[in-house]
């Protein structure tokens, strides 16, 4: 089961850098990132990192509002139509997701799609039934690299 690191972030100068400097100090490697902005002056920063638990601990110690959220990582082909084919499968499995982030694995012809879902267990079940390949944590975090 893979985790993303979700961080409450105000849209103010220097606030993002405060997060990245904590992660730098903790020697955390960021694999992918996405910011979900709201119209209210704040947003959520979602990170996939090589060591989510360590990242959370480091950020918490600095008083940052941070949470680990279960995500589902799916494999797709790194070529035209790869995402479309995968999303077709996800739709057939009737899994709905709030937000998603994609990432290429450079050393293979594969890419990863990371999904945030409301009902984690149910979604996993549906995807497995549909035969969608779920990627192991090692590959998501990229700790082998």
């Amino acid at each position, binding site marked *: 089961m893979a985790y993303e690191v979700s961080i*409450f972030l105000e849209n103010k100068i220097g606030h993002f850098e405060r997060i990245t400097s904590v992660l730098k100090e903790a020697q955390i490697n960021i694999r992918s990132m996405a910011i*979900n902005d709201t119209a*209210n002056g*704040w947003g959520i920063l979602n990170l996939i990192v090589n060591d989510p638990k360590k990242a959370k601990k480091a950020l918490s110690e600095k*008083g*940052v509002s*941070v949470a680990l*959220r279960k995500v589902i990582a799916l494999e797709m082909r790194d070529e035209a139509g790869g995402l479309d084919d995968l999303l077709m499968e996800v739709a057939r499995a009737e899994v709905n997701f709030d937000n998603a982030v994609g990432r290429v694995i450079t050393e293979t012809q594969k890419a990863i799609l990371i999904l945030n879902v409301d009902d984690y267990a149910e979604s996993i079940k549906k995807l497995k039934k549909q035969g969608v390949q779920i990627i192991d944590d090692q590959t998501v975090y990229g700790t082998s690299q």
Partner: protein
Amino acid sequence: MTLEFWQEEFETLEKKDLQQLQLERLNKTIESACRSLFYGELYSKKKIKPGVIKDISQITELPFTTKQDLRDNFPYGFLSLPKKDIIRLHSSSGTTGNPTVIFHNRHDLDSWANLMARSLFCAGVRDTDVFQNICGYGLFTGGLGFQYGIETLGALSIPAGAGNSLRQIKLMRDYGTTAAHAIPSYLGRLYEVFEAEGLDPKKDTQLKTLVIGAEPHTDAQRKRIEEMYGVRAFNSFGLSEMNGPGVAFECTHQNGLHIWEDSYLVEIIDPETLQPVPDGEYGELVMTTLDREAMPLIRYRTRDITRIIPGECECGRTHRRIDRITGRSDDMFIIKGCNVFPMQIEGVLMKIPEVGSDYMINLETMNGADEMVVEVEVKSDWFRGDIKRLDSLSKTITRQIRDEVLAKPIVKLVEAGSIPKSEGKAIRVTDNRKNGLLN
């Protein structure tokens, strides 16, 4: 210029006659107050009896009454008459604490309507005017208080109520409104709507008099309003504990507000030493009702900071003038016409488990309107990384604050630890509002 009065016999009383009238009314007020639970107990303990005051200056021997006393004796502890004689109440909000409630019998409402009519007359409003009251009706005193005053004066009243700017403009144009009452910050917003509609209130309405009150404002702000609308704008002062509007009003000389001394005994005290300050010096306004039967209040500490303007007014009225309110001796502020104590907001926030203990209230002028921005920390351990949850938390806080103080805030969620920790007396409110409108 001929001098005109609504009630010349009262408005131009010589000082000694006015003081004699005050003395008679004060003793009557004490007698009536003694019938209430609160004053009955307090005065018997202090051995204060009706008729004890021989000279008006002896008022300083009586104890003060505070807002807290009103809250502690909620709802009927200040009533001097049986409930069957009471015909109306007006009250502040206060879903958490006890609201401040004032009761009136028929005499009180008539007296209030008369003072309101006297006030409007002194600002130049006449029975030939079409008067639009742009103000919330209901428990808020600005609605019905003005309504009865306009009717008593004999002008044509339009009880327009608050908000809905397009409708306000339509009413003004349909009926040829010549005078209106609104809170000053709203008039800035209304002007923007005029502009957006391609209208100029100077040309496209018949407005000539605006009455502005319920919110402290500067003379610069008044001048802006006068320029925007091409009118004369008059400052109205009142507080719900003293009925509401109609306590003090500017005359056409626009140089301070005549406070109706036949109905209110006025003192200015140093809020620290509680001693009277000389005329001309700023201090806290303390008021005693002289013509209220259902619920007299004696030496009520208004918390409003003002001063007596020395000297006589050219208008011929002998009732002294107070200056515009410059502040509060407590931490109350006024936004969108609503009185707000920071503690009310704190009370709401502290009941919401997701909210941390630190918050800030920033009063800002945004797009010509005054707004209350409430910065709230979200507790780190509550954070789940879920945007929907935070959005709904933000909406919950907005709704609950609005329900409490009646003014809608702009709620801003901020990072935990980003608001300075409170050490001792924390500064919770910043007021960055512009002096004038539309800056």
